[in-house]
C-alpha cells in the first residue's frame, strides 16, 4: 500500500439492521479511488441512502468498517468528516434562514473563520448561480436553486470527497446540464465524487466507475466501460424515409415493425449491425436515422437486478 494514496472511500463488511428488524445492508464491500467519479445505483430501498447515511454519520452502522481517505470513522470520525461533503436527497436546511447565512453557518460548524467563510461562500454562490439570491430566505428559492444551495453548502469547507444523493431530482434539463458541467469541473480539479441517481444516462454521462446495489448487497462494482462491454443484446430503432416493404425480412435478426417508416432490431453480441443495413438495402430501404431504443446502461441495470433477485 505504501506510496499509493488511500482510497477516497473504503467500506468493508458494512451491515445495517434497523430497529424494526429490516436488514438494509448485508455486509457490503466497496472501494472508491481518489479522484474517481463514481455512481452508486440501485432501485428504491436497495441500501444506497443507508450507505451514504452511515458515511455521513446520519445513520449508525450495525457492523463493518468505513475508511474515508484512510481514516477509520470508528477511530477519528471528526477528522474523517472534514474530508467529506454531503448533498442529501431531501432538503435539510432551515428554510427561514438566508442563503448566505446557511453557507456561513455550515463553514462555522467546520471551524472556518468568518472572513474566510465569506470568501468561500461568495465563490460557490457565484459558481452555482445563486449570488443574486444570497440575501433571500431559502424558502423563496426554486427546487433547482435549493438543490444547488445544498451543493454549495457541501463544498464550503473544500472537502476531498463529495457525495451526492440524487442531486438532479426535480431539476430541469438546462439546470441539470449546468450542474453536470460544474460537477465535471470540480472532479477534474481533484474532488472525488460519488453520486446516486435514478437517471442512468446521468451515470453514463458523468461517471467512470459504477457499483450496483440491490437488497443490501453489491451486485457489481466496475468501470462503466467494462460493464457495457458485457451487454449481450442491444435494441436499435431504425427510421426510413420510404415506406417499409410488406413483408419485410431480416434473416438472423429479431425485429419489430413499429410503423410504416420505422422498426426496432435486436442485435445479439457477435452479430454485425452492417448486415442489417445490407439486408434492408437489398429490399430498397434506406435508413435515415438510428438510435438505441433503450438506454444501454438501463438494460444492463435491469439485467443485473433480475440476476440478483
Amino acid at each position, binding site marked *: 500500500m505504501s506510496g499509493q494514496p488511500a482510497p477516497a472511500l473504503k467500506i468493508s463488511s458494512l451491515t445495517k439492521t*434497523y430497529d424494526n428488524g429490516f436488514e438494509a445492508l448485508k455486509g457490503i464491500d466497496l472501494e472508491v479511488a481518489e479522484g474517481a467519479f463514481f455512481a452508486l445505483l440501485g432501485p428504491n430501498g436497495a441500501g444506497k441512502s*443507508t450507505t451514504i*447515511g452511515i458515511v*455521513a*454519520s*446520519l*445513520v*449508525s452502522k450495525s457492523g463493518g468498517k468505513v475508511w474515508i481517505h484512510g481514516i477509520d470513522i470508528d477511530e477519528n*470520525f*471528526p*477528522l474523517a*468528516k*472534514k474530508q*467529506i461533503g*454531503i448533498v*442529501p436527497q*431531501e*432538503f*435539510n*436546511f*432551515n*428554510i427561514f*434562514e438566508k442563503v448566505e*447565512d446557511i453557507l*456561513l*453557518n*455550515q463553514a*462555522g*460548524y*467546520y*471551524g*472556518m*473563520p*468568518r472572513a474566510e467563510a465569506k470568501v468561500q461562500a461568495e465563490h460557490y454562490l457565484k459558481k452555482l448561480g445563486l449570488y443574486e439570491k444570497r440575501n433571500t430566505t431559502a424558502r423563496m428559492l426554486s427546487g433547482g436553486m435549493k438543490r444547488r444551495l445544498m451543493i454549495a*453548502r457541501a463544498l464550503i469547507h473544500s472537502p476531498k470527497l463529495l457525495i451526492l444523493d440524487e442531486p438532479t431530482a426535480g431539476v430541469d434539463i438546462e439546470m441539470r446540464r449546468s450542474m453536470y458541467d460544474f460537477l465535471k469541473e470540480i472532479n477534474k480539479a481533484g474532488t472525488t465524487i460519488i453520486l446516486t441517481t435514478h437517471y442512468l444516462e446521468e451515470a453514463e454521462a458523468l461517471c467512470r466507475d459504477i457499483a450496483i446495489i440491490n437488497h443490501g448487497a453489491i451486485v457489481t462494482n466496475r468501470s462503466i466501460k467494462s460493464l457495457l462491454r458485457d451487454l449481450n443484446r442491444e435494441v436499435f430503432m431504425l427510421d426510413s424515409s420510404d415506406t417499409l416493404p410488406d413483408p419485410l425480412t431480416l434473416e438472423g435478426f429479431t425485429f419489430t415493425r413499429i410503423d410504416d417508416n420505422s422498426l426496432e432490431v435486436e442485435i445479439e453480441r457477435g452479430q454485425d449491425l452492417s448486415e442489417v443495413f445490407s439486408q434492408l438495402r437489398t429490399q430498397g430501404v434506406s435508413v435515415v436515422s438510428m438510435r438505441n431504443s433503450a438506454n444501454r446502461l438501463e438494460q444492463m441495470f435491469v439485467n443485473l437486478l433480475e440476476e440478483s433477485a
Partner: protein
Amino acid sequence: MSAYEQYIAFMTILRKEIRRFTRIWTQTLLPSAITISLYYMIFGNLIGSRIGEMDGISYMQFVVPGLIMMSIVTNSYSNVVSSFFGAKFNHSIEELQVSPIPNYIILWGYVSGGIARGLLVAIIVTLVSLFFTRLEVNNYLLVVAVVAMTSVLFALCGFINAVFANSFDDISIVPTFVLTPLIYLGGVFYSLDLLPDFWAGLSKANPLVYVVNAFRYGVLGISDVDIRISLSMIGGFTVIAYLFSLHLLRSGKRLRS
C-alpha cells in the same frame, strides 16, 4: 478540531440562536414583559395590597424575585426546546451531525442560546418590575450565580425535551403540564411556611422551590430553604441534566437512524 475551531463552531451556533430569537422578538421577548406586568398589576397591586405582608415584607416585593425567575425558567427552556426540535423537524440538525463539531460544543451552543434569551428576558422583566416596586439586591454575586445556574439547568431540560419530542405537541406538553404547575407550586406566590407540614415537605421534591428561594434570598435575603441546600440542589440537577444530554447526543438515539 482545534480549540480555536471549536470556539468558532460554538460562536456560530450561539450567533444563530441569538439571531433567531431576536428576529421573532414579538414571540420571544415581548410576551414575558406583558405577562409579568399583568402579574404585577393583579397579584402585586390589586390582590397584594389586601394580602399585606409575607415573611415580613410587602407582598409585591415578595413575588418579584419569583416572577423574574419564572421568566428565566420558561424562556431558557422554551428557546432550546423550540429551536432544537425545529432543527430536528426540518432536518437542519443534519448540518451539525455531518460536521466535525464535538457533541459538547453542540450542547453548549444551544444551551448558551437559551441562557442568552433567559438573561435578556430577566433584564426586561427586572426593568418592568422597577415601575411597580423598589428593588434592593441583598447579594449581587448570589443573584448572578443563581440566574446563570438556573438558565443552564432549564436550557438543558429544554434540550432533553426536544430530543425526545416527536411532534410540536410534545414540546408544549412538558411546559404546560409539568413546568407551569411546578413553577406555581414552587413558592413564587407564597411562602412554604403557609403550607401544612405534609405539603411543605412534598414541595421540597420540586426543583423550582430551590430555584425561587435561592433567587429570593439573593434579592431579599429571605428564603424558605437553606441557601446551601438550594445551591447544591440546583447544581446537582444541572450536572445530571448535562450528563444525560451528552449521553443522548453521543448515543444518537432519536437523532440518528
